[in-house]
């Protein structure tokens, strides 16, 4: 029995091992008996194992996506647990909630037909969400992108990200080459980005821009329009870096954090110290001091991983994202349904680019914008929304049954 279990090459078994081992490490280094660690491990392992099992049974699509994401989340949970067991436990709960949402989205998106038709619906819902955030939102870290409902903070922009992708997909699926249609489309896209700017959520604004450019690049027939958009985007970026104080600060902290180490550069330099302290193999879980970085459990989780699991640990995380991106685009390539093809591209781009800008930010390769590292960072909204997006991607990885009145997917 045991031998069979050990010989089993199913990846989720390996995942289970990784989790048990790392939790054992945590227990060993923390040197105190903590029942909650035990409960956490059992909970986490069971969740991963069972959901992978269910997925194998019900989905005919890609089975690697969920494994990759389980690994990423495991690394995140281990790190968060080590930083703060209370947060760690909460993250495990959120992980469970995320998986529930994953299945909910998977079933809903699969069963409900007609997603491609609701172009205006997506726009109206997003704008309502934006306005609600603007009115009810609280300011955290200079960005107004949180609303509180019954003690739980929600970040509507995480949900809008998915809706935005649906909007883009819906537009290009129903595109009819009418001139004013295009202007309306551009107007809508820029109103999204403008709202994010107003709420000072620069990171998300960058992600929206990037996703927009990518889908424009792949589907827009008017090629000149793409260049105009990219040039326009760059000009806005450069101008805002001179005019808007909030953006300026980011650039200063990126260009020479050492000169402003007491204030603007504090966080990023602490992050660099952490990464440096880890070396290639890391200090070992529980042996470093990632807690010196402010906000380490959310935006700077990657630095903590680098300190205690080493640069190689960090590279592993990047590689997991690369696999995720690869599978995502593979799904897009194999999907005949145009709407879901675009959705797959949009979601993959969102997740991949978000990972790129936050990792690039904390290692000071690019200016820092405060976004979470998908699936890894602490935070319910981010985790649940990412899992929801993954559920949709799972749908896109399957063969979509054509709706009778529209069979254009095969013919185009």
């Amino acid at each position, binding site marked *: 029995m045991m031998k069979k279990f050990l010989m089993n090459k199913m990846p989720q078994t390996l995942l289970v091992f990784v989790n048990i081992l790392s939790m054992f490490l945590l227990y060993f280094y923390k040197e105190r008996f903590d029942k909650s660690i035990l409960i956490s491990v059992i909970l986490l392992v069971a969740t991963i194992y069972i959901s992978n099992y269910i997925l194998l049974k019900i989905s005919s699509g890609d089975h690697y996506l969920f494994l990759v994401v389980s690994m990423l989340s495991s690394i995140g949970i281990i790190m968060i647990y080590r930083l703060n067991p209370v947060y760690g436990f909460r993250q495990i709960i959120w992980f469970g909630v995320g998986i529930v949402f994953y299945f909910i989205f998977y079933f809903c998106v699969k069963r409900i037909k007609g997603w491609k038709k609701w172009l205006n619906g997506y726009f109206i819902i997003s704008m309502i969400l934006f306005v609600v955030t603007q009115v009810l939102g609280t300011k955290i870290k200079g960005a107004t992108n949180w609303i509180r409902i019954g003690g739980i903070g929600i970040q509507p922009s995480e949900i809008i990200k998915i809706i935005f992708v649906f909007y883009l997909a819906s537009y290009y699926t129903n595109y009819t080459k009418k001139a004013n249609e295009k202007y309306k489309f551009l107007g809508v896209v820029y109103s999204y980005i403008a709202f994010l700017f107003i709420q000072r959520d620069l990171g998300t604004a960058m992600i929206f821009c990037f996703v927009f450019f990518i889908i424009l690049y792949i589907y827009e027939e008017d090629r000149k329009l793409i260049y105009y958009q990219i040039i326009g985007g760059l000009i806005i970026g450069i101008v805002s870096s001179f005019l808007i104080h909030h953006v300026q600060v980011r650039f200063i902290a990126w260009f020479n954090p050492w000169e402003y180490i007491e204030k603007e550069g504090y966080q990023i330099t602490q992050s660099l*110290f952490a990464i440096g302290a880890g070396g290639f193999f890391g200090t070992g879980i529980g042996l470093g001091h990632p807690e010196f970085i402010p906000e380490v459990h959310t935006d700077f989780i990657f630095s903590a991983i680098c300190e205690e699991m080493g640069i190689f640990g960090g590279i592993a995380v990047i590689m997991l994202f690369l696999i995720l991106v690869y599978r995502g685009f593979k799904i897009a390539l194999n999907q005949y349904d145009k709407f879901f093809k675009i959705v797959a591209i949009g979601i993959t781009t969102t997740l991949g680019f978000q990972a790129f800008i936050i990792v690039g930010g904390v290692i000071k390769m690019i200016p820092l914008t405060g976004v979470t590292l998908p699936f890894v960072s602490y935070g319910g909204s981010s985790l649940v929304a990412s899992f929801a997006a993954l559920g949709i991607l799972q749908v896109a990885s399957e063969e979509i049954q054509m709706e009778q009145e529209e069979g254009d997917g095969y013919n185009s």
Partner: protein
Amino acid sequence: MDTTAKRIVKVLILFCILLGSLVLYLSYFEIFVVAKIQDNPYNKRQWMREEYVLRGSILDRNEKVLASSIKQDKQQIRNYPFKNLYSHVIGYSFKEYGKTAIEKNYNNQLLGIGNSPLTKVKDKIMGSDNMGNNVVLTIDHTLQKNADELLRGKKGSIVLMNPKTGEIYAMVSKPDFDPNTMRDDWQDIIENKESPLINRATTGLYTPGSVFKMITATSVMENNSNQNYFCEGKTNIGGYVLKDYHSIAHGNVDLEKALIYSCNVAFSQMGIELGEEKLKSTAQKYMFDKQIPFDIMSKKSIFSEEVKMTKTELGVSAIGQGKVLVTPLNMAMVASTIANDGNMMKPFLVKEIINSKNRIIKMQPPKILSHVTNKENANKLRDIMIQVVEVGTGKKAKIKNVRVAGKTGTAENGSDKEHAWFIGFAPANDPKVAIAVVLENEGKTGGTSAAPIAREILKNALNRVQ
């Protein structure tokens, strides 16, 4: 593949580049950047370790404690019992002002960081005693104190070393400061125009004057260049009139006589006859223009910059004037080279590192740094240096019953007061100690001011060093 598919693949490639660049940047950062930023005072990690590891002591060669730490209410206090005496050798270690000298370069050893992986595993299992390692210096406390007293009230530096091994016995730089009271004195120290924070022994760049003639003489012997000249008391090199001390004409001089009486006219002509290439090559064998590997920060002595020298520049360089600049450490090494049959030893300050249980973890063995000249030439130079002390400019360095070899220097510099130099070693037939003394802007000749100081130290050193 249709266009859409092609474009999707291109986007995938873009992602590979983006994520790949993260990996490359991380590796680059780890390999090239980390070492530069880790010591930043804002990196709290280094101080974290200092909270629970008792910083090791620093001892002299006879295990006298020169710096130690004690725990007081969870805080550590670093104590320097000899105050100013080791401000430049040992340096200081403060959160606010950082670290210098041995405290800086041996920080990891003092904190027990980087002990072998095996020790780490052992510590983990057995429980570490949280004691750092102790650093044992080559310094002899008595000689250091002696050198310090002789330099009191003056500006300058003394370096005393073992010519055969490279061990530094004493290294004094004046003015200095008291690391114990640095927190209170910091403003005064940094505003002081005499720059007490600078370790003149290793980073002070002085015009060497006539002590440089040892290098020119070595080059003449090495290259079998002409050794006979006629001195009229002054000479005209390319329009520049170079005079001897009091314009004394030495008449017909050979290399020996030129050195004994420190004849500028003869030496400048020797330099010109040698040419820049040969003189430079000898100077570089003496580690000019090169970084001397040392246990604390040191600067390069400068013979020439990249530009070609004019005849005048070459003439004045050959007598140690012009743009030539040296550190006292380097000049002590020049004396040591002649004492050690033409082989220059790598200088060192740290003899060994011992752990809290007195086990030696690491020793520093003597190493040859540079083969400068052969034994024959070295012995000839030594014989001339004996004559310098017996009958020449260095008479005040004479010690009863011991033969001293030496060379004096009086270096003109930007100010109207010359630097006084003496380099030498004793006993001449079997050298035990070598020395360099420089008195900054002393305004007297090396023979009258630096030689007597060197004499006192050499005498005491010979009594202590076997």
